[in-house]
């Protein structure tokens, strides 16, 4: 990875009502902690809405990937409300659709299947992160 590589902001929807919100969050953590540490960063989604200057600066200065837990697409919409178009937007349910054998469970904390699914999803998103970090199309 180049020294000049950008940070890539991964914003999960952060919902606490559905398993897919937990899956979105865990995928972001996997990207940040294991798959692309030092490249992937995140912030608290609600900070954007309360006009926190650091959070706004982060999403305006770097490419953003949103991962939503339901079709209401809160993460994507919250970023767009800042006048920023996410470079890529994902729905966590599609991670499950692609790996039907890993049915996730749990909301505050994912079960083993959910964690495995998040790890696989994060691995699959690595290439998107690399493209964006290298200055790919935003």
């Amino acid at each position, binding site marked *: 990875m180049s020294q000049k590589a950008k940070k890539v902001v991964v914003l999960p929807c952060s919902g606490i009502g*559905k398993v*897919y919100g937990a899956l979105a969050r865990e995928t972001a953590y996997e990207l940040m902690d294991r798959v692309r540490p030092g490249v992937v960063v995140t912030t608290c989604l609600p900070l954007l809405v309360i006009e926190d200057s650091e959070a706004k600066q982060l999403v305006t200065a770097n490419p953003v990937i949103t991962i939503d837990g*339901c*079709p209401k697409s809160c993460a994507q919409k919250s970023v767009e409300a800042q006048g920023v178009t996410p470079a890529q937007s994902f*729905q966590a*349910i599609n991670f499950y659709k692609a790996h*039907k054998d890993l*049915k996730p469970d749990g909301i505050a904390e994912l079960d083993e299947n959910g964690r495995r699914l998040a790890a696989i999803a994060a691995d699959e998103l690595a290439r998107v992160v690399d493209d964006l970090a290298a200055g790919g199309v935003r």
Partner: protein
Amino acid sequence: MGEFLETTYDKFVFKVRTGYFYSQDDFWADVDGDSALIGVSDFLQKAKGDVAFLETAEVGTEVKQGGEIGKIETIKATFGILSPVSGKVIEVNPEMESNSYLINEDCYGAGWIYKIQLADFDNDRANLLAADKYLDLMQGKIAEEMKNK
């Protein structure tokens, strides 16, 4: 009467589209001449959760009222699509292949599943409920669902 009847439980607003016919199994039929669009009620989609997988029957499949024509799988459950009317499938909503979430997003509109050529609607109708009667049935089901939550 407005477009929808509604009932609220906790934060959830459950809607019933007026002008549609409803089965006791929570499926609706929007009858237009000799055919009907069918789909799932707002109560059913809320109770079962986001649709992950949908298995549909082919065009030409014949079904009796209450018969199963496909399956819906959510994170919570897998359940049959039980036709509220007898007839033959003449169209499957083309959006269902890639956008089955429309069942959750717009269950009475863009989330329709099949168009059925009606075989015997006069008889079927006796087993179906108008929106106001289905609202009563749904309220009982909501109370039961919440009790078991």
